[in-house]
């Protein structure tokens, strides 16, 4: 079972990626920005909050 939350992420338009729902692993790859090493980068991660509905957590 994949526990990675779905998130959306803003990425530079020059990389052809718009905000979309993707998983965390894909987000990490998209944020590898070539030719910008040694500079501080900014990431904005957005997503939908989910309640834990596993049986052990229910009343």
């Amino acid at each position: 079972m994949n526990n990675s939350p779905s998130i959306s992420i803003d990425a530079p338009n020059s990389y052809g990626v718009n905000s979309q729902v993707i998983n965390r692993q894909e987000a990490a790859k998209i944020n590898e920005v070539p030719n910008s090493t040694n500079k501080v980068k900014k990431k904005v991660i957005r997503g939908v909050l989910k309640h834990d509905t596993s049986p052990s957590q229910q009343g």
Partner: protein
Amino acid sequence: MTLHPVNKDNSERIRQGDIFSNVPYYESYTEKNGEFELTVYEFPYVIVLTQDCDLEQNKAARSKAADTSPMIENDKHLFSVIVAPLYNSEHLFSGQHLSLLGISSQPQNSKLKGPIQNNQNPRYHYIEFGDDVFIPNSVIDFKHYFSVSVSWLESNIEGRVCGINPLYRELISQRFSNYLSRIGLPNLDEIQTEGS
């Protein structure tokens, strides 16, 4: 003396002077209408400035806690570690080291670069590394210090590139504390102008 000898100690303990790569600073987190937004800055390199004895005592106290009951007397606990970013010196001198954040700085001309490279500007510490370290000539900006949780650094210990050797790291720590403890005096010229 800008060449800083380093070590590549593989111990699990975080040490003063350790340099980590790709360290996040969580600027903000908000929740609204069932959605969240997290803003993160990722710093290519940071140096640990927290006192080494504090880091050592914290590690030792937590090791004891793990061995015995979950409740233990521990007055050495650290939540976070003070770090400061290392900027590529050429980027900083050009004023473009924060360009990906939409921030530009005043370029440093040769008259301003000299004091930085000679570590005579209290805000900055200039570092050159030996051939065994793949980090460009860098400048620590003491004004940009922030903290990182101990647990994040320990979980990402493989991100430690190297550690600045003793004496050199203490020099950096001393210059950092001197910078933080500076006293800003009022500008008497401005006060007199306003009062006249």
